[in-house]
């Protein structure tokens, strides 16, 4: 089972009166809820979460400088290359991205904290 396949199943489920479908595989669990044709897919991976570390030093930002909310919320699916945080050096902002698709678990460094090379920044659970 992959996420894409699970999404496909979720689509089919919308046309049925099945309210809940739980799919289990070696790498995770897919939970599909169907409320009157509106389906929601919850993905939880059982693979161990990996820490993603800083590739430069800088001030770690969990939010865009103009915004008050975090770039990514815990337990949401992120795609490879998606911006999860920023490293600020003076006027410059460099992106901290998800190295692969996964579930963003939580930040490991605080917002506005000074981080060095290899400081763990956030945890990503592979799918």
């Amino acid at each position, binding site marked *: 089972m992959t996420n894409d396949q699970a999404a496909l199943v979720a689509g089919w489920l919308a046309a049925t009166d099945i309210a809940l479908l739980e799919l289990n595989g070696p790498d995770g669990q897919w939970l599909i809820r169907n409320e009157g044709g509106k389906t929601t897919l919850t993905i939880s991976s059982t693979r161990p979460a990996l820490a993603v570390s800083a*590739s430069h030093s800088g001030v770690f930002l969990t939010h865009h*400088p103009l*915004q008050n909310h975090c770039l990514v919320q815990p337990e949401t699916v992120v795609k490879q290359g998606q911006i999860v945080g920023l490293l600020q050096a*003076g*006027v*410059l*902002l460099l*992106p901290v991205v998800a190295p692969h698709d996964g579930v963003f678990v939580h930040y490991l460094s605080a917002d506005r904290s000074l981080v060095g090379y290899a400081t763990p920044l956030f945890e990503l659970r592979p799918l």
Partner: protein
Amino acid sequence: MIEVLSSTALATVQDLGRFGALGWGVSHSGAMDRLALAAGNILLGNDDNSAAVEIPIFPFRVRFHHACNIVLTGADHLARLDDQPLQPWLVAPVQAGQVLTVERGGSSRWQASRVYLCVAGGIDVPLALGSRSTQLRGQFGGYQGRTLQQGDRLPVGVASDVHCPAGMGVVPPALSMPLMVEGTQAIRVLWAAEYEAFTDHSCAEFWAKNWKITSQSDRYGYRLAGPMIESKVPLELRSHGIVPGVIQVPHGGQPIIQMRDAQPSGGYPKIGTVIDADLWRLGQVQIGSSVRFVEVSWPEAVKALQDVTDWLEEVRRMVALGRTAQKGAGHDQ
């Protein structure tokens, strides 16, 4: 090529402006927030003066017909590429066929009005009298000398081969160089020729009170609402050259600040001039909000302009460093 999908009025193509044509009655035009335009261009490896789309009214929607790098600078409103949120002031790669939507709103820490859509290679409309800026009054320059309309197809120039890492960005100058007085946006002003012709009371009020930017404000000028500004005797001046930033006071007593499309000459008495270094701030003030004028001396005004130049040079230097760092980090996209 970029296709305009929304029917929103008032978006225009602008570069840094048209200089050397005042003597033909042709105003400077150009981006209201020149720092946003120049910083966006630096991020994309463009010439500082490359043209972008200035968007003052939302929603604004365009479809990209070829893959390119873009960055939204200026105000932070709700932007998305297809259904994915797009962060302001960060470079984003765009695929052919993708649709950019900018809607009013969001909870930005900087409440501002104009978004700049900067594209690698710049908006490649023909030069008119040395500039790609739209001359609305003269109906030339920009895209067919007018505001953009649904169905317009904007040509994009050839991007430089400078590496443009996705997600690299710049901290907006409103955060790096804030200027507030008692919670109100401050705007620095030099005395103009007729300053002392206004009553002492009016001059005191001019500095002390908040000035509301009325709905009769646009790229030509901002009409302000506040205390009455009265001259000691009625003044009738001979027409003379004026520049963006000049604050005229017509007989009605409510000031008008000349903005980028303002006519290059006028005859109403001038109480002050917004310093060049703060015109970008003023260009981003939202209609209905207020500003406070702060008196500065000539050396302070020159220093402020140097600060703006220094900020841009720092952006240029750090972005160059950022390109190298991102290459080294293997985040190349």
